């Protein structure tokens, strides 16, 4: 099993969710995140005091997938989240040892 984590632009969240739903992904966790990569922040000015805002708002999306589905999920996310401009985000994958569904106690791929 794999944990796929994607950092995407906030306004792309709905596109990614719809695309994942279309390929049959049944669950997804999102959280607000801030960070920077090649996209640097911006400048804000309050009464003449300038601040460099380094951390840009992003959304972190986490999806659990079977090993054989992972590549397709990643490809779907990347396609849906891409604008072609700097700051589109990143996707990374980790191995997952175990998954348990809280309600039923099911383990492994059945719990995804």
């Amino acid at each position, binding site marked *: 099993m794999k944990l796929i984590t994607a950092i995407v632009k906030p306004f792309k969240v709905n596109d990614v969710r719809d695309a994942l739903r279309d390929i049959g992904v049944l669950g997804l966790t999102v959280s607000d995140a801030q960070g920077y990569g090649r996209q640097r922040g911006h400048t*804000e*000015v*309050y*009464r*003449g*005091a*300038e*601040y460099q805002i380094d951390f840009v708002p992003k959304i972190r999306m986490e999806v659990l997938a079977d090993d054989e589905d992972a590549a397709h999920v990643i490809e779907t996310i990347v396609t849906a989240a891409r604008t072609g401009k700097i700051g589109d985000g990143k996707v990374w994958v980790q191995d997952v040892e175990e998954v348990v569904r809280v309600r039923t106690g099911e383990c492994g791929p059945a719990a995804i």
Partner: protein
Amino acid sequence: MHALLTEAAQVSSGDTAWLIVCTALVLLMTPGLAFFYAGMVRSKHALAMIMQSFVTIAIVSVTWVLVGYSLAFDHDVAGGLVGGLHLTGLTHAEVAVPGLPLTVPPLAFVAFQMMFAILTAALLSGASADRMRFGAFVTFIAIWSVVVYAPLAHWVWSPEGWLNRAGLLDFAGGTVVEICSGASALALALVIGPRRGWPREMMAPHNLPLTLLGAGLLWFGWIGFNAGSALSAGYLAASAALVTHLSGVGGMIGWLVIEKWLTGKATTLGAASGAVAGLVAITPAAGFLSPLPALLLGATAGVVSVFAIRLKFRFKYDDSLDVVAVHYVGGVIGTLFIGLFAAAAVNPAVRHQGLLLGGGLTQLARQGIGVLAATAFAFIATYAIAWVLRATIGLRVEPDEESEGLDTSQHAETAYEFTSTSGMGRVS
């Protein structure tokens, strides 16, 4: 304050109704200021900022009734410097306001003036934002309202005050409210020292919609502040209401144009700040200026304040919410503008027209003396009060309380609760 009050008149129901309405309008300015300020601080200090304005309503109302009003408006006892104690506790206050032949019941005047004392004191909280102990603030404000505000109000607004007799024109508080709060704010900021991390750390406003709401409430109340200072409901009040609004408009336009030119963007905080700067500037002049000079005055104040706001970084004093740059600078500009544009056609109390209306330098010189005297007195007296309090009870919160935020450290509350995971359940 310089309404046509030539002869003792009967109580006028129209004037009385208007003054009571204006009392309510001016009262609303202090909660307005609370929101104006609270939006500009970081979220962990928002409630403490609001609380300082609200508690000022309570504290200064009491000091005003007990002794402040008497020191300000009782018959003079010290060469124009301070009023006597005959009206302490408002005994005898319902009979008459010494020297002012009003067409309203004296107690209406007492209440109206009380709201001015409250607002002026509350303005100071912007200079000491995010680092003053609540108890220290309460103590400071109580003393300050008696020792600084009341005597200065006497100098300028009591017919027996020395600046009043010296011919200073101050319709609604360019010296008594704006210069006084601005010079005092500078003194307080110097004594209490900068916020931890200033100016290196980011201390951006946490809720600008709140600041704009506050600015709107201030603007609304300011009509009562200035037009009410006519102390009558007639031509003068109408003129004051109009020019007050126009100066606020001028301030907003002036600030936004300069800001757009300097930084490339017109900001909402700039709009709110500019409007307030314009309203500050018209405060002393509302009863003496025609509409177009008022517009010019507001624009001048808006433009100058944009630059004045940079002074604190240059001279390294943390006047956190720019009381000096907006209130002091605006107050000085407005007070001096009277010397340029005061028009007898607007207010027959103008004996020497402004310099640009052919009246010569007489009035401008008098205004200049008022600016210097109010600045020196407010700064020195406030510095002394703050210094003594710092040496005795202490002014600042502990460093970790400051980092944690005044909301939790001073009031055991938080302004915004967004998470459902932080609580551990009820403990008692």
